[in-house]
């Protein structure tokens, strides 16, 4: 068998591939060389398709395999339906359908009609390692080769588990990033050192607009000094104060543009479970009352069956317009606006403008 140093090198390559899947080809090729196989690969079942990380197999062999032979590859089929972790040999598996089309027309001409094969994972979509070699008078599965492959199997399995785990973490990170980006408010996650750990899409836009808020030296700051002092205190309070309500602290942040000020809330998050109950993160939610997206007319029409004219009136009411302004804007009489509004009340089950505004605003995202 190989020396400890050689083995260590093979295993390091395998475990490295768990974090950098692009390295699999190199890791498998090293294993292929160590056992003296002609071609090798990792076959990964993915739904109805098969992904092959193959090494040292001629391109034309791979092309014809993908186009035709993969469907009659009885060797791989036997490996994938067989026991997990067991080293299977060419002499055992190739013989299952010796001289069949796959054997005679593909494996033999490409000198892959012997070898060792191991199914590495369980489940309906298994991953297997293939180390193929030409059939010679002496069987490929010598005790040394089998021992080496047997010793590598747990490492291959472990690396695949690690890879799976990383993928799971990365996937859920991507999911959460997008979900947080879909929120209309600015959301900023602040870490223990006071630095911004994450900004959602809306918060990035607000900070870039520089209309009263920005990120400086990694921290969220209000541009006006007195407001900034209140903001930093609110964040600090959210980190440290015991028995704080759901709101750590709230600040109104005026904007140089003269638009309605931002409303900012700092909320403690990820609190320690033992006293002192210190938050490890603070979530800052920034609301831009100007940008409170109003739901489009079509949505109101679909949800409550409003007519186009009724939806138009409802949207304008929610925006804060008065009836006579709406009448002017739409060039209709105030009586008509009132009539539309009455229908809107009836269809939405509301009785007053304030109630209607409240209902419509809950449609915001």
């Amino acid at each position, binding site marked *: *068998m190989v020396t400890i140093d050689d083995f260590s090198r093979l*295993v390091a390559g395998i*475990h490295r591939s768990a974090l950098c899947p692009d390295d699999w080809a190199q890791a498998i090729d090293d294993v292929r060389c160590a056992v003296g196989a002609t071609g090798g690969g990792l076959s990964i079942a993915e739904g109805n398709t098969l992904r092959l990380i193959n090494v040292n197999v001629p391109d034309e062999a791979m092309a014809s395999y993908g186009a035709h032979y993969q469907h009659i590859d009885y060797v791989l089929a036997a490996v994938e339906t067989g026991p997990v972790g067991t080293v299977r040999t060419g002499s055992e598996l190739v013989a299952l359908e010796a001289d069949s089309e796959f054997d005679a027309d593909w494996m033999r001409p490409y000198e892959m009609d012997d070898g060792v094969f191991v199914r590495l994972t369980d489940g309906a979509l298994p991953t297997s390692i293939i180390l193929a070699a030409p059939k010679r008078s002496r069987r490929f599965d010598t005790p040394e080769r089998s021992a080496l492959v047997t010793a590598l199997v747990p*490492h291959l399995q472990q690396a695949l*588990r690690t890879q799976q785990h990383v993928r799971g973490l990365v996937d859920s990170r*991507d999911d*959460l990033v997008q*979900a947080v980006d879909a929120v209309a408010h600015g959301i900023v996650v602040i870490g223990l050192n006071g630095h911004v750990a994450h900004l959602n899409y809306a918060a990035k836009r607000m900070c870039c607009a520089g209309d009263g808020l920005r990120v400086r030296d990694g921290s969220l700051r209000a541009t006006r000094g007195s407001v900034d002092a209140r903001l930093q205190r609110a964040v600090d309070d959210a980190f440290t104060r015991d028995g704080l309500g759901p709101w750590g602290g709230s600040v109104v942040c005026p904007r140089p543009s003269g638009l309605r000020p931002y409303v900012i809330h700092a909320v403690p998050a990820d609190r320690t479970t033992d006293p002192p109950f210190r938050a490890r993160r603070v979530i800052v939610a920034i609301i831009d009352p100007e940008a409170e997206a109003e739901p489009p007319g079509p949505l109101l029409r679909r949800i409550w069956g409003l007519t186009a004219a009724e939806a138009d009136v409802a949207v304008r009411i929610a925006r804060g317009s008065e009836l006579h302004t709406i009448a002017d804007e739409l060039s209709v009489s105030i009586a008509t606006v009132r009539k539309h509004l009455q229908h809107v009340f009836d269809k939405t089950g509301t009785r007053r403008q*304030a109630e209607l505004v409240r209902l419509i605003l*809950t449609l915001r995202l």
Partner: protein
Amino acid sequence: MKDVTVEDFSRLVSAVYGAALEPWRWESALREITGELDGSGSALLIPDCVNWYNSTLPAEASEAYQQYYHRLDRVAAATAGGPVGVVRTGTELMPLVRNSEFSDWLRPYDIDDALVVRLGTGASPACLIVAAPKRADAFDAPERVGLVEALVPHLQQAVRTQGLFAGLAGVNRDLAEALEAVRHGCVIVGADRSVVHLNSSAERILRADDGLRIAFSAITATTTPASGRLQRALSAALGLDAVAGRGGSLLCERHSGNRPYLVHVLPLRREKPSRPRALVLIADPAAAPRSAAVLLRHLYGLTESEADVAVRISRGAALAEIGEQLSVSITTVRKHLQHVFGKTDTHRQADLVRLVLALDP
């Protein structure tokens, strides 16, 4: 020390990588390494994660080390300040601590020799320490040093892997907390319509089983018209039908008779059609804004009565109703409302409702 076979080495390496995935397994991994080297104990210091795993030292020894003696440990300091990946020996480093205060800590545990190696870069790198008692032959026999050297790249990679996992898990925790700050119920739904993530608002709503619930790990509307609409909106958002990548909004009636939930379904990750995701946002029009009265007083300087009137108006009550509820005349309610308008810079009730609702993310 007995000869190390490839099988022995393979077992040690497996244990090391296994610990990267499940850090509680470091103890047994270190015990195996200690046993193979015929030492008396070993420890892995991972300062960035504030972890100390040791194989054989009693708990009070670790505690005393972490709380006090680590500052006096000049062997660890020399290792952490030395070259990366080089195995250092007790012959070289132990004289640094002999007859120092640190030997008070070493003596009861019979630590007199060691092999140490710095694994990481940076100001406070991870280090491996394998300790041994005083013996006739030195601990730094070539076979031992060779084995530790062979383990170094694996320990390094395991520590890196563990750091990566901790980092990703931390980011995911942060993002999940960020969704907690949203008033709406937020549910992330996977390709098979199963719930992948939900915030605690969503959990509350779904647990209440008032028109929406989780059945067979999928989010389901329990009233007939809403059920079909929700399924269609999900299919559209997940790209399972012809109109790919579009979501939808719907009303979901409630058994309690409360105002229906407003449900928005949005497609997520348009750039990765192989793993579609949808975000379901559930707004409950019946839920009062959290602590709106407190916020109005705090942010706009309203009095208690003014804030009370403002909140009731934002819930849709008429002035006469409010007067009755608070047992005051309608003139008084009007007067409060005038003050509210003045202090919040609003002019009409609809304006005020917008402002109050905007207070709550």
